[in-house]
């Protein structure tokens, strides 16, 4: 795996669909957070909404969202998926992506530590010892290249690993450190080891129970983003798969992540415009579209 300078991928364009910040602000709950589509506030849509608003220079509504996030931070340094849930999960990586200026230096630092301390269960010594005692085979790569789980004490998966890499990559550019660099590198090896034969990524293993799995558009886009600057056969095949998905797919969620993945590898078509007929149904879909559009215009929240 070789990390290098990313190819230029930003494509300036005008918004080509009537997605409005006002609509996003109008969906904010009284507590300051956002639902996925309706109901109570959740961490994931709130982070994406904050990114979208700040990318557009809208601060008042975003600050109320940040305050809500601050109110639900957990003592272990992580974030729960919503208020009242008694465990920190993968969404901690999303909050860390907001950075110390937005989240606050101390909570941000604790979030980075939480990420560094969290691995998929299959990588832990306790799990591997138990499997060894039971006579079960374990993969050496699981120990060498840990990923991140959705929730602690579970296996590592492609989406939470990609999000954690994106957060740590941003942190490393802010403040280089060996520990952060090591986890990013290991996480990227985790992803490369799970690439599907046809190119791209499923949510988890490339061969569950020995059968080849099929790649998904959204996971392929996200994993490609986490592999920014990486040159490898897996990335090359994934880019081909992503371009195929991009031409066919009409899911807003998948298109958002494909735009992201293709852009950071310099493969997003110039003058990209969201195809007609794509429905933006949830707060994450709406917000990420705005975030990706701003990034294509040079205001990149993930790398900025």
């Amino acid at each position, binding site marked *: 795996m070789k990390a290098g300078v990313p190819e230029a991928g930003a494509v300036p364009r005008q918004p080509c669909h009537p997605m409005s910040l006002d609509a996003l602000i109008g969906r904010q709950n009284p507590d300051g957070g956002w*639902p*996925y*589509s309706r*109901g*109570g506030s*959740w961490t*994931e849509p709130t982070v994406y909404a904050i990114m979208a608003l700040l990318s557009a220079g809208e601060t008042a509504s975003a600050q109320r969202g940040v305050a809500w996030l601050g109110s639900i931070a957990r003592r272990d340094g992580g974030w729960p*998926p*919503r208020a*009242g*849930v*008694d*465990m920190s*999960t*993968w969404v901690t990586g999303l909050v860390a992506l907001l950075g110390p200026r937005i989240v606050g230096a101390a909570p941000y630092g604790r979030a980075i530590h939480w990420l560094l301390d969290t691995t998929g*269960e299959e990588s832990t010594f306790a799990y591997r010892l138990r499997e060894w005692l039971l006579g079960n085979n374990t993969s050496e790569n699981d120990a060498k290249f840990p990923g991140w*789980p*959705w*929730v*602690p*004490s*579970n*296996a590592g*998966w492609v*989406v*939470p690993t990609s999000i954690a890499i994106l957060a740590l990559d941003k942190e490393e550019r802010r403040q280089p450190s060996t520990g952060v660099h090591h986890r990013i590198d290991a996480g990227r090896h985790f992803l490369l080891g799970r690439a599907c034969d046809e190119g791209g990524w499923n*949510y*988890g293993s490339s061969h*569950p*129970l020995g*059968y080849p799995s099929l790649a*998904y558009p*959204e996971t392929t886009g996200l994993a490609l983003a986490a592999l920014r600057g990486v040159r490898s056969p897996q990335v090359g095949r994934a880019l081909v798969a992503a371009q195929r998905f991009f031409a066919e797919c*009409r*899911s*807003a*969620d*998948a298109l958002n992540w494909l735009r992201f993945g293709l852009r950071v590898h310099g493969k997003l078509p110039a003058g990209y415009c969201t195809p007609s007929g794509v*429905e933006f*149904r*949830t707060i994450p*879909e709406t917000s990420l579209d705005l975030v990706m559009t701003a990034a294509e215009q040079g205001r990149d929240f993930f790398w900025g």
Partner: protein
Amino acid sequence: MHPKPTRRQWIAGSAGAALLSGCRTNSPPAAPAVPHQVSIVRAPAYDQSLYDSVRRILAGHRLDVRGRSVVLKPNLVEFEPESSINTHPLLVHAAREAFLAAGAASVRIAEGPGHRRNTLDLADAAGYFRTIPKFEDLFVDLNLDDVTHVRFPAQLSGLEKVYLSNTALGADLLVSMPKMKTHHLVGATLSMKNLFGTVPGAIYGWPKNALHWAGIADCIADLHTVYPRQFAIVDAIVGMDGNGPIQGDPKPVGIVVTGDDPLAVDATCCRVMGIDPFRIAYLRLAAADLGRLAEQGILQTGETIAAVATPFRLIPEFQGLRLAP
């Protein structure tokens, strides 16, 4: 979240359990005092005749849903409209119309897929928007729903408590509408396994890996105990065999299997598929009284099992699940 030793693990660790297990295998289980009705109705195709069939099925079960809130829980898995992977939208719409005709106050459709996050796009690809008027207004994404922390009454799995969708918990009647499929981890996925979709992905992720680590069979059995008011409508018009529940092959069976006891329904489906229900771990775990799985303990109506039996291909690891000839 650290799974605790489960009741099953404690039992399995004792010599007494081995003896008990032996007794269960060797002695025919007694039938329950009040057998549950399971109906098998022929439905050769996904066509307009389903609407009348489902109405007659509900009437045959004498379900009183007047004024009640009903939640239909289909199985949505993948973006493959031409495959047999998802519960067919026509059957779901027929069920909605039938429950409304029977006097239900509301009939919503709800699902929380285990792999794909973009549920509405998945439902769109599966034909739900085309088939069911105002689908988006009727639908609840259980992965993103508001939740309640619930303690499993039976404590069979390593999960002491679990967050579950309020829409599923609040239903007066939760109607599980799975596809009849083989499953590469538990043998068969039917009405009970389908309830994994009520566990929110927004908390546990995609897939809901916490359920795997706590024991899939144990979690299926635990979830069954959380929902006391259930009905099952199994889409076995075209099922899936081989390497299900995702990469298997379409398997035409031409029936709909229904009943108010998911254990009895799933046991019947297993027999149709050529699988011994006593060898499906989650059915054994959930059936405190194994008589509920016994053929003589189920009030069979409509077609007989023998008349519709359609052996499903099983992956090599599950050849041992076959019903004895």
